């Protein structure tokens, strides 16, 4: 077994005519928290879906647990996925099941454990996220932060080796944000997980990550430990880590010259 749990080599992917990735290389080391950061719309969620085999790359190689994801058969892929957990941005709890049933779901479909054992495991996982008392609530009755914690309990129900977080900090109030940050860090240490966090909340992410990549314009523009990134002199990294509105990573979506655009409309109005 290599030290790298997931490897992405020279990944190309495009949606419709827009290229999302053009030549991305990533390495996720066992037992670490790896962060993938970048401005919105750089395809961070897409990257996770590619790792989980929900999307197929145009070219390049993605391997997880030393298996090339895109080459796997449907059944082998589902088997591989049972070793991964993923926390979706919205939580994605099954709305027709209670909190308890949501967490029990992966156990029910992948194991033949007796009901008492399922119950114990579910309660352990719920206790880990501090929501053992909320087990009988329906997802609609939960707050956003609680939803994400239940989803986290569900993602770790099968004790996966690799846990992927999609924007775990978005839209959280400072308290639940702090709770989540601590939770992710602790879970990684206690359960010996490997984690990938995809996020644009730089401060929180860098505070727990062991290694980070910054994506922009379809490629990795910088990588390193949080300390290295913060000390970096590279302009893009400075802009991103410092949170400056404009810089090498443009604030504007590509467009024609602004004054020309305005004049163009004025001319058309004249004609009319």
């Amino acid at each position, binding site marked *: 077994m290599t030290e790298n749990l997931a490897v992405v080599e020279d990944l190309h992917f495009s949606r419709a005519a827009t290229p999302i990735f053009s030549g991305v290389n990533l390495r996720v080391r066992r037992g670490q928290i790896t962060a993938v950061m970048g401005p919105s719309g750089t395809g961070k969620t897409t990257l996770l879906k590619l790792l*989980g085999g929900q999307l197929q790359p145009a070219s390049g190689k993605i391997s997880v647990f030393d298996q090339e994801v895109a080459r796997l058969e449907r059944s082998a892929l*589902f088997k591989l*996925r049972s070793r991964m957990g993923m926390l979706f941005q*919205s939580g*994605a709890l099954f709305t027709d099941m209670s909190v308890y049933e949501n967490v029990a779901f*992966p156990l029910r479909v992948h194991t033949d454990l007796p009901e008492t054992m399922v119950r114990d495991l579910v309660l352990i996982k719920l206790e880990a996220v501090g929501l053992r008392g909320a087990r009988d609530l329906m997802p609609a009755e939960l707050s956003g932060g609680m939803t994400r914690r239940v989803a986290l309990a569900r993602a770790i129900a099968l004790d996966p080796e690799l846990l992927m977080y999609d924007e775990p900090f978005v839209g959280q109030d400072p308290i639940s944000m702090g709770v989540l940050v601590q939770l992710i860090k602790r879970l990684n240490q206690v359960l010996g997980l490997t984690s990938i966090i995809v996020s644009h909340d730089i401060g929180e992410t860098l505070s727990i990550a062991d290694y980070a990549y910054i994506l922009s314009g379809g490629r990795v523009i910088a990588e390193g430990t949080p300390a290295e990134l913060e000390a970096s002199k590279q302009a893009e990294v400075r802009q991103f880590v410092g949170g400056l509105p404009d810089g090498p990573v443009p604030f504007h979506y590509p467009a024609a010259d602004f004054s020309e655009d305005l004049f163009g409309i004025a001319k058309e109005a004249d004609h009319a």
Partner: protein
Amino acid sequence: MLDLLAGLGRKQLDILAALGRSGIFIFQSLVGWPKSTEALSLWVRQVYSIGVLSLIIIVVSGLFIGMVLALQGYTILVDFGAEQALGQMVALSLTRELAPVVAALLFAGRAGSALTAEIGLMKATEQLSSMEMIGVDPLKRIVAPRLLAGFFALPLLTLVFAMVGVGGGWLVGVDWLGVDGGAFWSNMQSAVGFQQDVINGVIKSLVFALAVTWIAVFQGYDLVPTSEGISRATTKTVVYSSLVILGLDFILTALMFSNI
């Protein structure tokens, strides 16, 4: 001009691609559907939400359609002194046409649109993706039980519709307008054949069930996961289902009843 042609061609290819996707979709959902007790309980739950919950609208519409048929039929038949034939008119129109078609149209509006919206919302809230990542195939877990429940429920609803319709016809014809009850039933029995009318009606409704459920579930699964996408897909389900039902009805009627 060339642009227009190219656009048209692209549109055709899009339609062809959607058709292909829907074919692969139904194939992957139904092949190797697990026959465990859990699958059965998922199916039962869907029969409940698709079939049992549609019962009220089916029963009420069936009753009224039977009553209207009897009322209209009576005013026409009484001119020829043939009001004895009321039973046969009501029963034949119900078993051959109205029960399969109207039940299917109501089913598309009541259960089909709900299916599309439900699956669409699951897609929009990433529930389908997260199920995939848990290692459960949503085609098998979400889609297949719904498809099979739809195939099963509509023929039953059609039979209930026809029964209630005949009852409504009897209520108006015999109980209210005073047509002779004996003649009502005996004329009906001599005119309606079990095989060529009742069974053919059930076959029709089975075909409609396949079409409507397939369209509804596929539209839900294939939609653009935004609120606009969901509303558009729900509309599409009802429109496409209705058109397909009426078109198929013509073809099936031509095949079944043209040589009787």
